[in-house]
């Protein structure tokens, strides 16, 4: 009952932010597209036909065709699967690893220094470079790409979670739980985490945008998905040599990345605004 009203309260506040709602609609659209790519796409993502190579956008091919005669629209639709799943899973990985480390660090002061100094160490390495190292070491594949992007942003999550857990564990209800003899893990899972999760949600939404960009950049550099899979960054990279003559090959996947990332950003901002306890009336 209480939970329900909290959610509806959040939704009420979120709804007021028009930009965020628009972003959410765009995101939902993209998710629908990703799920139903097979039904929506007029062609397969690897239907090659040399006779229709490099056709500029027209009625039959709204986004044109590439050098191998593949329909760019179909590839873009299939590509949304990769970009979105990379976004979700990579962030999922960083939420799990970063969240776990953050909670441990905050809850067990003895481990705090060790864990957080390790995280600082990772922070010192530029995220992109770290991701590249991980992909190079593991070999390039879809899963490794997610892993690389996810692991490289672990330290950020660890910090955010640690900070919010530190604040929560001093609360009276935690003390009360301890007083009635609850175990450490029960306290963490049932009392501390639910109360410090809002920071995590906001961070995760914003990080998802970053993850999609990082994954696209890695694919652009050739560290990502293997051809002929249509990842947006890889499409951008494949089209860049034609940028002077067939600009649509780069503009279209570029726009797709931009729209999704923008939508994620405004949704993240909107969520932060309505979840931030300081903004509560």
């Amino acid at each position, binding site marked *: 009952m209480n939970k329900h009203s909290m959610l509806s309260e959040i939704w009420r506040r979120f709804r007021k932010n028009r930009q965020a709602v628009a972003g959410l609609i765009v995101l939902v659209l993209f998710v629908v597209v990703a799920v139903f790519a097979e039904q929506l796409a007029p062609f397969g993502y690897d239907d090659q036909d*040399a006779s229709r*190579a490099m056709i500029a956008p027209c009625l039959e091919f709204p986004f044109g065709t590439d050098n*191998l005669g593949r329909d760019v629209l179909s590839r873009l639709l299939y590509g949304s699967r990769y970009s979105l799943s990379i976004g979700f899973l990579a962030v999922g990985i960083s939420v799990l690893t970063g969240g776990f480390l953050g909670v441990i660090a905050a809850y067990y002061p003895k481990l705090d220094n060790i864990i957080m100094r390790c995280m600082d160490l990772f922070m010192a390495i530029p995220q992109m470079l770290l991701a590249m190292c991980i992909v190079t070491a593991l070999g*390039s594949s879809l899963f490794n790409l997610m892993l690389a992007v996810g692991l490289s942003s672990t330290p950020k999550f660890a910090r955010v979670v640690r900070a919010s857990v530190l604040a929560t564990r001093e609360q009276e209800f935690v003390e009360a739980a301890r007083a009635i003899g609850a175990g450490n893990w029960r306290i963490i899972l049932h009392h501390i985490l639910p109360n410090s999760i809002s920071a995590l949600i906001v961070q995760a939404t914003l990080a998802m945008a970053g993850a999609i960009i990082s994954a696209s950049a890695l694919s652009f550099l050739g560290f990502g998905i293997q051809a002929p899979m249509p990842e947006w960054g890889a499409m951008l990279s494949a089209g860049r040599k034609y940028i*002077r*003559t067939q600009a649509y090959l780069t503009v279209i996947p570029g726009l797709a990345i931009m729209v999704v990332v923008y939508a994620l950003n405004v949704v993240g901002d909107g969520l932060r605004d309505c979840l931030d306890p300081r903004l509560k009336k």
Partner: protein
Amino acid sequence: MKKSLHRILAMAACLCLLLTACGGNGDSNGSGGGSDGASSGDGTSGGKDTMVIAAQADMADKDPINGSTTNDTIKIKAQVYETLIERTVPDQEYRPLLAEKWEFNDDATELTITLREGIQCHNGETLTAEDCLFSLQCLRESANKSVTDHMDLEKSYAVDERTFVIVMDEPYMPIIANLSYPTCVMFSKKGYEEANGDWANMDVGTGPYTWGEWSIGSSVKLIGFDDYYVEGQPAIKNVEFKVISEDGNRYIEVETGGADLCYNLSGVDIAAAEANADVEIFREFTMDNCYLSFNHRNSPFNDVRVRQAIAYALDIDSAWQVCMDGVGQPAKGLLPDNITDSIAKQDSPYHVDYPVYQYNLEKAKELLAEAGYPNGFSCRYHVGHMALRQAYGEFFANALSQIGINVEIVALDAATNAQALKVEHNFDIYTWGIAATNGDIDFANRFFYTDNANNIFGYSDPEMDAMVDAAAKEPDAAKRSEMNAAIQQKALDECIIVPIYQQEDIHCHTASLKGFCNGAFQSPLLKYCYFE
């Protein structure tokens, strides 16, 4: 309102920054390019003495004998260090360079070389026969020791200051090609010993240019050598190689006057360059074929029918059309037709039409069924790191899926790919290049020789080995062509490799730059260039 004002201000600031950056660049280009605009403006270009070259990659090192032999590196080193013999492209003639003349004895076991008179090294020493023998000895101990194959350097000797004799352990005709190979350079022994063999800090070559400033990753400068043994060469006093890895940007540099010459023009820029009256294009087919091959060590590729089935399934003409943007041409034979003794040559008495296995999916399926794979199989295809070969990979993977072969494309970076192919032999299908790199067909023949470093596919047949050895020893040119033809025929019959396209050198330069030509190993001979 306030927020949007901030945004506008920030954007304006960024724009200003960008504009000033561009402006600064433009200025430095103008002065770096040897007052390009000014001199060509008043018609007297005698004042322009610097050539700026937009190159694809930086030089890897300064070491001409042990160092890197990537195309980009050789293109620079070949201006500073010279070989005894110069090979001209495309007519494939051997011309005197440091050597004035060379002569075999009657049984082709000794080669007498006479040096030109008055060759100065960059350290001020005169190049002597003793220096040449020392250089060969250094090469023998280097990573590129194959250029000294079959030379007996213990027994080789200097006759006088300018004459020396290379004694060979057996007749070996490709020795001339080896002496013209860009790593087979001659240098001053004294200079080498004084610098303790530290190539980074010595300049002991004989080439038309000496080392200038090298800013790693961005530019290499060369300065003309005043005491070069040919009067009037090099005509252009300074050369600067600017590293610009992005294809499109390299061409734009020439269009905007930031560079006089652009190496490796990409296919998509050809049309723009052709339409531009101020830009001239240089095109020349190289001696490389890119091929697709198989891991002969394992089944199913040790079955010739499987290899032939794959060859039948590949439409190399269409593939070239969609992947190459007009650069190069579909393969004309096992080896390019500009290699002496290649049976791809139209006028060769042993000429064979290519493709031998003309695109035919029905035939491919039949052969596959005959070999016991009526439903195909799955395999991995190592395409390497080059975008072009990846495009081919995508095209071929799609084609092979039509005969039931399910291909997984593996794109690895250059080093990891080479490791998988050459060391671990952990691959099924891959693409690579085959070339007569030193100009002699023997080099290409050795690709089919058991355990040769270039025999990545792992083919091994004692009969083939004997044929290759015999052809290299044969002094009679006509007999040698026949033997070379038989080797190529055997390779085609057994479908050891499937050649797919022939590479092409495409450079472009401003119309005022004249005399541009290629030497061996696709390294342009900049000493002949001049401005008009």
